C-alpha cells in the first residue's frame, strides 16, 4: 500500500477534484452573466443587511407606539412615518425593518441544521446500506408521512403556553425546532440517491482498491457529486421556510407578539385591508414576496448552473 506508484496514483486521483472545482467557478461565471440573478442577489443581500444592521435603516423603535397616531397613511420619505403607522400607532417602516431578522434568522437556522442532518444521514445510509440504511429509511419515512405544516400546527399549538423568553433566538426557538424536525428528510433522500448512484462507479472502486478509507471515499469522492444538488436546493428551501414562517405567524403559532415578524404584520394588516388601510397588508406582503422571489430565482438558476446534465 505504501508503494510510491500507488501514492502517485492517489495523488493523481485527488487531482481529479479539479474539474469539480471548475464546475463551481463555471457555475459562478454563468450566474454572473444573468441579469435576473444579479437583481435577485441585490435584493437578497439588501434584506440580509436589513436583518443584520436594522439601525442603519430606521431610527425608530418598533415597540414604541403612540395610539393617538394610529393608522396614519404613508407619508413617504421626508415625513415622520414614511410608511405610515399601524392600528396601534407603531411605525410601519421600523416594524418592517425589525421584522426582517426573525424571518431570515429562522430560515437560515432551519435550513442550515437540516442540511447538516440530511447530508450526514444520507451519506452514511447510502454508503453502508444494510441495517444503517434500513433504520434511516424508516425514520425518514415516518417523518415524511407527517406533513411539515400539520406537524408544526399540532406541536406548536400543543406547546402554545410555553414561554421561552424574549431574546432574538428564544422567540424563534420553538418554530425553529419543529420546522427543522420535519425539514431534513428531503436532503437525506437526495444525498442517499446520489451516493447510491456514485458509489459503484469505477473511480470509487479504484479509490477503494487503492486503500482509501471509508471516510475519505465518502468525503472526497462520493459527496462532491451530491453537493451540487444540495446547494441548489438551499436557496429554495430558505424561501420556503420564510413562507412557512409567515403562515405560522398568520395562524398565531409561529413567532409571537410582541416580537415583530412579517407574518405577524401580514396577519394584522389583513384585518384592516377592507377598512381602507391596504398599505398595512401590502408593505409586509411586498417585502415577503420580494425576499422569497429573490431566493427562488437564485435557487432556480443555481440548480441549472450546477447540473452538468442540462448543459
Amino acid at each position, binding site marked *: 500500500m505504501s508503494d510510491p506508484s500507488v501514492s502517485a496514483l492517489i495523488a493523481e486521483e485527488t487531482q481529479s477534484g479539479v474539474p469539480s472545482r471548475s464546475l463551481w467557478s463555471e457555475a459562478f461565471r454563468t450566474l454572473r452573466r444573468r441579469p435576473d440573478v444579479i437583481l435577485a442577489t441585490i435584493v437578497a443581500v439588501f434584506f440580509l443587511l436589513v436583518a443584520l444592521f436594522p439601525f442603519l435603516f430606521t431610527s425608530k423603535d418598533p415597540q414604541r407606539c403612540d395610539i393617538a397616531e394610529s393608522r396614519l397613511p404613508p407619508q413617504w420619505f421626508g415625513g415622520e412615518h414614511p410608511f405610515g403607522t399601524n392600528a396601534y400607532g407603531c411605525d410601519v417602516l421600523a416594524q418592517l425593518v425589525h421584522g426582517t431578522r426573525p424571518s431570515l434568522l429562522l430560515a437560515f437556522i432551519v435550513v442550515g441544521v437540516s442540511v447538516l442532518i440530511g447530508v450526514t444521514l444520507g451519506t452514511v445510509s447510502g454508503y453502508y446500506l444494510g441495517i444503517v440504511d434500513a433504520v434511516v429509511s*424508516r425514520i425518514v*419515512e*415516518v*417523518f*415524511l*408521512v*407527517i*406533513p*411539515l*405544516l*400539520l406537524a408544526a*400546527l*399540532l*406541536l406548536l*399549538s*400543543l*406547546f*402554545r*403556553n*410555553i414561554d421561552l423568553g424574549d431574546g432574538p433566538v428564544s422567540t424563534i426557538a420553538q418554530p425553529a425546532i419543529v420546522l427543522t424536525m420535519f425539514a431534513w428528510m428531503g436532503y437525506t433522500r437526495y444525498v442517499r440517491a446520489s451516493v447510491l448512484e456514485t458509489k459503484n462507479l469505477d473511480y470509487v472502486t479504484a479509490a477503494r482498491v487503492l486503500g482509501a478509507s471509508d471516510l475519505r471515499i465518502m468525503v472526497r469522492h462520493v459527496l462532491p457529486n451530491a453537493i451540487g444538488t444540495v446547494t441548489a436546493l438551499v436557496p*429554495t428551501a430558505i*424561501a420556503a421556510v420564510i*413562507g*412557512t414562517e*409567515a*403562515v405560522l405567524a*398568520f*395562524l398565531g403559532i409561529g413567532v409571537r407578539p410582541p416580537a415583530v415578524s412579517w407574518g405577524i404584520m*401580514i396577519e394584522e394588516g*389583513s384585518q384592516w*385591508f*377592507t377598512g381602507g388601510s391596504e398599505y398595512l*397588508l401590502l408593505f409586509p*406582503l411586498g417585502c*415577503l*414576496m420580494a425576499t*422569497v*422571489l429573490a431566493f*427562488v*430565482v437564485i435557487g*432556480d438558476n443555481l440548480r441549472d448552473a450546477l447540473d452538468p*446534465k*442540462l448543459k
Partner: protein
Amino acid sequence: MGRYITRRVLQGFLTLFLVMFLLHLLTTLAIQLNGNPAQAFFGDRTPSPSQLAAVETRYGLDDPCYDQLGNPCIGPFVERLGDYAQGDFGESLRGRPVTDIVSTAAPNTLRLFVVVTITWLAIGMTLGGIAARRRGKASDHGIRGLSILIDALPIFVLLLVYKYIFSVPLSRWAKDTFGSDSLPALLFKPSFSPQHAWATLIVPGILLGLAGSAAFIRLVRAAQLETYNADHVRTARSKGLSERHVSRHHVVRNSAIPVVTAVGIVFTEALAGAVITEGMMNIYGMGGVLWKAVQDSDVSVVIGVVTLLAAVTVVVMLVVDVVYAALDPRIRYE
C-alpha cells in the same frame, strides 16, 4: 415483484406503527409540559376535582404517567392501539365519535383533492412539456418566470388576496348578473356551502393546485429535458420518427417516473395546504376539522385525525413506490 410488494406492505405497517408511536410521544410530552387538556372541556369554568376526574377517565387521560415528565406512557399507547384496531378513534369534547366526524368531512376533502390533482396535471404537464420542448425560447423563459412567481406566492397569500380582493366584488357581480343561485355566483362565493359542495370548492381547489403546480412544472420540464438528451431519443429521431411520435412515446413516457414519485411527495404538501385552504375558506373537510380541533385543544380529535391522515399518506406512498417499481425495473435493488 410479488415479494417486493409484500415487503413494502410490511414496511408500510411498520411505518404506520412508528408514526403512531411518534405522535403519541409528542402529544404525551406536550401534555406533560403543558398541563391537562381535560381542562379544555370546561372552557373558562373551574371544574370540581370529581368532574375533572370523570372527564379524564372518559378521554383516557387519567393515567398517572401524564403527570410524570419523560415517561413514555406505554400503557395508554397500547390501549389506544387496541381501540384503533376496533375502529374506535376516540370522540370529540362534545361527545361525537371521530370516525363520525371524519366520515362527514372526508368527502369534501376528497372533492378538493380531485380539483387539486386535475389542476396539477393540467398545469404541470402542459406548461412543463411546452417549456421542455421549447427550451431556451421565449415561452420557456415565460413559463419559468411564471413558476417562480407561483413559488413566491404561498397558498395563504393567494387565498388572502382572493378572499379579500376578488371574491367579494366578483360574487356581487355574478349575483346581480346571473341570480344568487346560479353557477357563477356559487363559484365565487367567499365561503363554503354544503348544499353546493362542488361549485364552492372549485376555486379554492384550483388555487391550492396552482400553489403546488410550480414544483410540477419544473419537475416535468427537467425530467423531459433529461430524456430529450438521452441516446434512445436521438436514435428515435435519427431513424426518422416524427417529432410528435418521439415526444409522446419516447420522452413523455420515460419522464413519467420522477413525476409519479413526485405525486407522493407533493401529496403530503397538499394535505398541509388543504388545512390552510379549508381553515381559511371555512370548508368542512378533514383539514378544517383538524384546524378547529387544534384551536379548541381537542387532543383526541387531533390525534385521531392526524393518525387517519398518516394512514392515508402511508397507503399513497406505498402505491407510489409500487408504481415506481413497476415502471422502472432498475428500482428493485435487491
